[in-house]
């Protein structure tokens, strides 16, 4: 039980470090020197030392509460993942994250935040079904508990190597990809709307958000590795997560930001692909 607390602190630390590595790799691919790998860590600390207040136009309570909720749901998500809880609850937490993204933008009253929030609603249209397709793992393993899925993998080998579960892995990969910074689907914090829904959250609030995002990245990457490769010892888990993240860094570095409708369309196409595959597999099996 104390280990969970340590895992939590580790998740914050590793998440921020991985964000930094992500930035560094992107910079190197684009032949820039890039910031040090500790940048995101220093970034968060810097924000936390700054003068902070609540904008006058904001919905005061919600402006603060949404940051707290953002961190809280991912603490819960980490617990569900570590104890091998239900994949459905993880899915729920992902959806609640969409809600907090929306709330972040709405609460400030800033037009940029509002645009970010509206784009978050648009992207929910494709991201939610995308995550739901992961539920098709149920067809393969016969259970939605993460502990059962890892037990299945221990017996039958990683799901990533099985042809049946591959489309689900792709769907989950796109989901994780669309949640790391600088990704092609990141329309809600695109630079043409300043920082989207994060625009007005500065100082301490931003530092809190970065903390939450760090746990989120850790949970999503760890969930991907656990679901499709299997339960690994901690050091191996961290290495596997790093490898997954590095592949994402390449994609982020080499692809431009998509326009909102293109992002939704591409994700919807992947959903269509997975659904058709699942239906065909269901008919054949």
């Amino acid at each position, binding site marked *: 039980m104390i280990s969970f607390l340590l895992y939590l602190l580790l998740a914050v630390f590793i998440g921020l470090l991985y964000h930094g590595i992500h930035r560094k790799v992107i910079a190197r691919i684009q032949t820039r020197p890039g910031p040090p790998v500790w940048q995101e860590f220093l970034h968060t600390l810097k924000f936390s030392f700054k003068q902070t207040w609540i904008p006058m136009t904001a919905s005061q309570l919600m402006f603060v509460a949404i940051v707290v909720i953002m961190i809280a749901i991912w603490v819960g998500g980490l617990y569900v993942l570590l104890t091998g809880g239900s994949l459905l609850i993880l899915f729920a937490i992902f959806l609640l994250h969409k*809600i907090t993204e929306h709330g972040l933008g709405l609460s400030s009253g800033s037009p940029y935040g509002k645009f970010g*929030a509206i784009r978050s609603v*648009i992207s929910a249209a494709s991201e939610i079904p995308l995550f739901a397709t992961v539920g098709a793992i149920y067809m393969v393993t016969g259970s939605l508990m993460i502990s059962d899925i890892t037990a299945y993998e221990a017996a039958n080998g990683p799901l990533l190597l099985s042809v049946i579960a591959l489309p689900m892995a792709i769907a989950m990969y796109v989901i994780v990809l669309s949640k790391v910074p600088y990704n092609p689907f990141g329309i809600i914090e695109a630079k043409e709307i300043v920082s989207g829904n994060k625009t007005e959250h500065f100082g301490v609030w931003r530092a809190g958000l970065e903390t939450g995002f760090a746990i989120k990245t850790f949970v999503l990457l760890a969930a991907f590795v656990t679901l499709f490769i299997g339960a690994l010892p901690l050091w191996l888990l961290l290495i596997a997560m790093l490898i997954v993240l590095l592949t994402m860094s390449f994609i982020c570095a080499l692809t431009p930001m998509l326009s909102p409708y293109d992002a939704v369309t591409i994700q919807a196409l992947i959903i269509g692909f997975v659904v058709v595959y699942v239906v065909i597999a269901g008919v054949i099996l």
Partner: protein
Amino acid sequence: MYNLPSPQIEGEILAYIPFGDIVYYFSPYTLVLFIFALTFTALAILSRPEKQVDIAFGGDAYYTKEIPEKQMRFQRFMAISCGLATMAGVTTGDIFNFTLLTAMVGICNIGIVASVKNKHVLDNAYEYGILAMIGTLPLFGAAAIILATTGTLSLWEIFTPAVSVPVIAKALLVIGVIGEGMAPVYVAKAEITRAPGAPYVLMIHVSSLLMFLRVVEIIISM
């Protein structure tokens, strides 16, 4: 009587509240959803709406929109009833009750934005409302077909492996919830969320996503 059908989906039942033949119950999954709905309802009650900033393009001018007291009260009332419907919807153990509460969420969602004096918002709220109304057909249709084929409306009974539910009923149920809450023309809904009044407008998103989460659990368990 209250034996949990399929513990691998949502975990053990923690508590239940029977109201006659409609039983509300908490499993870890529904408890998470319930607490979330409760949190956001509390936020809607406690926090003041934001003052939306509008920029007049082509110049430096910007102004903030004040929400009139009357409109704020109405939106808050609607948001609270939407939150209550959501809280009941995610914990109910009766399929017809679930569909009714989903329909109520749809009505409340329209209500939250109906008092906004903005042509675009109202136009889109109307489009959304038409879809929500049509959405009641697959919703209630699914419940009726489930009743006709299984002879019961209780989720406790339906979740048992012995009872099989036709695929068409499952499909209709999902379509119904999507039509009612999530509005297939998501973009119209995005237009709605542009309305000022942050904690109340957010409730539209909260309620429809939570209902969707619940229906995912229901169709997987059936």
